[in-house]
């Protein structure tokens, strides 16, 4: 259980961060952005990205909206809410503290 939670935590952080820089992205674009900015090192799988998006929407961190695409199909795009911005701050500082802690362990062990 603990393992998934940690992974999900970092996925949330990535999604929130991406949406804070480039608002109004659809799911695929978020996935592509994660892959692109991380230099293809990090990859969010579809099977975990969408549950994460729904969960964050439920929690009120992000907001979804349907838009019409050029092809006539609809696409669902996401953007950050005020609560999401706050959460991003929390997640970022948590991540920093984890990284700091890990680095300390690596240095002193």
């Amino acid at each position, binding site marked *: 259980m603990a393992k998934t939670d940690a992974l999900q935590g970092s996925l949330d952080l990535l999604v929130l961060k991406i949406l804070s820089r480039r608002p109004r992205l659809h799911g*695929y674009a978020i996935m592509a952005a994660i892959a692109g900015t991380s230099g293809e090192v990090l990859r969010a799988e579809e099977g975990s990205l*969408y549950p*994460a998006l*729904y969960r964050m929407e439920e929690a009120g961190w992000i907001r979804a909206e349907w838009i019409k695409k050029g092809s006539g199909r609809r696409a669902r795009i996401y953007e950050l809410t005020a609560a999401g911005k706050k959460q991003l701050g929390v997640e970022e500082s948590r991540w920093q503290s984890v990284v700091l802690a890990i680095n300390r362990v690596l240095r002193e062990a």
Partner: protein
Amino acid sequence: MSIWSRISNALHGERLNREIDEELQSHIEEAIASGRDPGEARRAFGSALRAREASSIRVAGWLESLLADLRFGWRQLCRNKVASAAAVLSLALGIGCCVAAFRLIDALLWRPLPISNSSGLYFLSRKLTGPEGKPIEDGYWATPDFNLMRDAAKDQAELIAISSADRTDITWSTDDDMEKAHVVYVSGNMFPQFGLEPELGRLIAPVDDRGPGLAPYAVLSWDYWNHRFGRDPRVLGRSLQIGDQTFEIIGVGPRYFTGTEKGTVTDIFLPLSMNRFAALDSVTWHHAFLMLKPGVNPDTALESLRQHLSAVSYSFEADCSTCLRGMTQPNIDRYLNKTLVFSPAGAGISDLQKEYRRLLGVLGLLVALVLLIACVNVANMMTAQAAARAQEMALRISIGAGRRRLVQLILSQSALLALLASVLGAIFAAWSAPFVLSLINPRDNPARLDLPADWRVLLFGFGLILLVVLLLGLLPALRASAVRPVAALKGGEDPHSPRRLMRGAIALQVAFCFLVLFLSSLFVASFQRLENRPLGFSTDRLLLLEAVAGQRQLPVVWNQTAEALRAAPGVNSVAISGWPLLGRIRINSDVSIIGAPPSPTPAWFLNVSPGWLSTMKIPLVSGRDFRPEDTSPGAAIVNETFAETFFPGQDPIGHTFERGANQPINKILAVIPDVPYDDLREPNRAVFYVPFDEIDGKSTPKAVDFATFTIHTDAQDPLALAGSLRQLIAQRHNGLRVSNITTQLDLVRDQTIRERLLAMLAGFFAVVALFLAGIGLYAVLNYSVLQRRREIGIRMAIGSTRTSIVHLVTLDVLPIVALGGCAGGALGFGAARYVASLFYQVKATDTDMIALPTGAILLTALIATLPAVLRALRTDPTEILRNG
């Protein structure tokens, strides 16, 4: 997730699924557009999407999945055979009781009469203040009064006269074979107005109204023709003897018409004009119905018609010299001050309806509660099973089962349960409705009602099944619909939510159970108190021969017959009374003391022969019994209430009273204790007893047309002598005939039929409700202990004492039981107010009435908790921690 979004999710599940699909589809398109391999892009979503796609392609998917769900539900039921059988049986009992109660209530109170335009039929009655100062409703009319009203109303409505269906002695041949039949006198316009056609011959027609005694014709009901004559068409033209009148059979009525008196099946219809009361101004003896003419609007016409008829009837009664004879002015004022009332009579009118309306209401409430308790039980069982199947549900969701599918899965299982239960329930209802009906009314004159299993009953049954399916499926289905997209893909569940739901259900169950127990204990106590009411006379070995004399016979003939009966072997003593005590006959009389105007309160009377008091084992308080030379008027014996009412603080012996102003005086010979007169429930009445031998003004004996021989037998069973004594009377050929044979014990028992029935049914439902609630409590506790096995094991391992484990398990439910009990108590007080008229000397606030259900519920809760507590205490921590 709020309850609201759960419901909205359940309702909009389909749309939500579509949106998820649409979003994923758009994702795949993007992926393909940016150069990914289409197959690989689709595979990235795994089986979830593929399952969705596959199901949307299938055309008959819905039906197929329903069948699959039913098959799966059946396998689930078979897996838990004992639990499923218990569920089906308890539901069957609940459904069966509900359907049976509906059949009775519908047949007696709601089902329209099988006549044309039954909704336009009204019953005419008058509200006035009764002789005892209580408001009463009088539904009887004098024929001349009725005729005046009929003429007054004829432009807008037709007035129909119908007498009560009286159980009457009739003779089909010249021999002494007398039998009983329900005879109804009707006005000639009844059959045509009701749109009824004869099965055979002709029916009574308006022409039969032409004058008293001019239409000696009789029409048989189809039912009587069927069971008495085997539908023999040669019955037409046969003659029939009632008293000294002879009637010719002219026809047979239509198949389904049994009269307007629900609960009694009419056997013979006679023309109104053939009853000798029809010519009398002063005798109110038949009912009056009103049928609006076609095209007359009831909303506008009824009120003016009511006022018009009220005025016509008032002037008739005010001018009627014989009606008011001997009445005091206050009584005349009271009598004339009436309000005419029209009540809809499309479903018939009968005393049975009046007497049993409340009882059937209570019955309906009790069966509904039992069904609810059973439903909650089964729903709890299903919730527990569903929780145990959480893994399976998670798997279903992960392979793409939508909310609707899950709801369908659960509902199809509850539908299977309900259907199985309804088959058993239908069998139970088919047996129990006629059984309960047979318990209404005395054995020799049972209530008869048509209880057809037609579309009304079927519709009710289907509605009930639908309700049960929803009640059973509601909780589990709501839980299934609570699954959120993320949880659905992840398979997570809140392990405590089923227990919370189940505990809520237990509170509900305890509340219902308390209500049933509370009402039941009130009814049972009422019955017991009524049954144990001191009678003041002995019913032991008392045979009652009710005899009639077609031609009135002098008292000497009756006394000789009593003498002959006394000489018969096995007879201990014989006395004569006008009618038996508690025989539902009561006749009042004015009482005036030494020429004063009659007192405002009347007294009641009974003619009795010398020796009647000792035969009935009624002791004398003071004075002496009648002697053969005492006659009426002249001598009287009074009860203690009479003495207190009319001679307060004096010894009444030797005093005199008259039965109305200017009547001959009666000298009081003795005082006897109060004994119930006509009704066990009534408080004591002022009663005086006068000698059986009556004389008129010129000292000539008055002939008597009916009386009751009270016979004290040597044998334990007085009915053993019935046959030989009946024959003895017949052989004397002195004009007396036995019309009815019963025992004093049966008359007393017949008084408590309604209370006995209610106590029996309520007791039965109380036991069922308690049993079901006990099972429900046991199942929930057991489930919760199983769920918390690990927790209990760990607690024990770290040194929790046995007491604290017991606390842990029981404190979980005790507040819930208490809460449910309080809610049930509040409901009970509300319900008791509505049915207080069915109680006898009990009040809802009596402490033992509250203590009894409370004790029963606590005891049941204790017994139901015991296995779960033992299981908790037997938990082996080492095993739990090793395997858990």
